[in-house]
């Protein structure tokens, strides 16, 4: 198998390399792909949308439809992970481990046993428990808000600098995942429950699609933000810029929540009472 794979891959390599022979040289500004459509974007992005970051302008406006479905892809990935992995709630764990904080004694309670209340005295811990590392916990606790702030900046400043809803969303999600990694999954789900993340990510996508539908209702084509100018009370070009903003926020929300949701399910294999 290995040999066959190697040989066929080698042949494919040769063939594909042969296929590159008619490519225009790397970095050639005169290659056809750099001449036709893209020039329009570079030359008109500012006057059409007043967004200097051309990538954002194309992403959310010229090809905004792609991006909507990109959000849908990530949303469906979230749903798919949930659908595949989630164990039902009544599927209780076999044993639950508690730790008496003062003494450090670990209690293992088999299925059906009476569970102590989580309080200052008792703390539920994972079955494969590693003692907390103070440095990590404190560092991440300090870091998390800054990362979140940065994420919001990335979302908000996507018009002018690299970034946008997607990157910002991922960073925001990563911040929460960092919290989950440094603490426990339970603490995280306490703050952002699964239901909330699921509903919010649907709402994020809904914001995107809803903006498009608003344009439709305002008399324009789907996702034609300039139709919102009357609604927002600005000129059509600025309306496009605002529309992009709205959409980016929707993407950010959706992506954040999906990242968290997928992480919840992956790290706990769908049980969600203990994770990484």
């Amino acid at each position, binding site marked *: 198998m290995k040999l066959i*794979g190697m040989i066929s891959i080698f042949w494919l*390599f040769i063939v594909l390399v042969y296929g590159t022979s008619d490519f225009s040289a790397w970095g050639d500004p005169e290659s056809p*792909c750099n001449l036709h459509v893209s020039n329009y974007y*570079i030359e008109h992005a500012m006057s059409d949308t007043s967004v200097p*970051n051309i*990538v954002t302008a194309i992403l959310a406006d010229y090809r905004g439809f792609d991006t909507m479905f990109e959000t849908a892809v990530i949303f469906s*990935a979230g749903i798919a992970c949930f659908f595949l992995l989630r164990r039902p709630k009544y599927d209780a764990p076999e044993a639950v481990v508690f730790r008496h904080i003062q003494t450090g004694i670990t209690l293992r309670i088999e299925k059906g046993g009476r569970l102590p209340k989580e309080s200052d005295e008792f703390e539920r811990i994972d079955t494969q428990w590693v003692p907390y590392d103070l440095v990590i916990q404190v560092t991440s606790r300090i870091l998390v808000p800054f990362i979140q702030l940065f994420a919001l900046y990335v979302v908000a400043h996507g018009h002018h600098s690299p970034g946008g809803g997607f990157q910002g969303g991922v960073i925001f999600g990563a911040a929460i995942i960092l919290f989950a990694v440094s603490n426990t999954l339970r603490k995280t789900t306490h703050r952002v429950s699964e239901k909330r993340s699921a509903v919010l990510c649907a709402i994020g996508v809904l914001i995107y699609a809803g903006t498009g539908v608003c344009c439709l209702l305002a008399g324009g084509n789907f996702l034609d933000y300039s139709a919102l100018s009357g609604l927002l009370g600005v000129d059509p070009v600025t309306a496009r810029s605002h529309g992009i903003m709205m959409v980016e926020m929707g993407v950010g929300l959706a992506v954040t929540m999906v990242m968290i949701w997928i992480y919840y399910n992956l790290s706990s294999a769908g049980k969600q009472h203990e994770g990484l």
Partner: protein
Amino acid sequence: MDDMIAIILSKYNYWTVITLMMIGLYAMIVKNNLIKKIIGMNIFQTSIILFYVSMGMKKDATIPILEHHPGMQEHVYHAADYINPLPHVLMLTAIVVSVATLGVALSLALKVYDQYGTLEEDEINAKIRKASVKS
């Protein structure tokens, strides 16, 4: 000889793309462990992203963020000054797709592990065969 170097210089990026693609494909076909296969899949996808990004490259051009400051409304932008932004947009989407695929793939792998207790494909196949013989 100069021709040769010129060709290499103008194409090496694409050849790297193809090399990476082949590495990924090889892993997907030959590797036994499912996680390794998934890593191979991701390498495969990133190589295509690299292909698109190299395609949009322009020599002597800057990143696709337009120069702007108040009072520049009438400014005319020249396409040759900026790198082609379209492939970047497409690849943002492709990256998202790849992470989404990764999520689903990993959850399927977890499910497989749950069922068979291993991620090695030959062991899984052996178990399936045993089960089918039994029934």
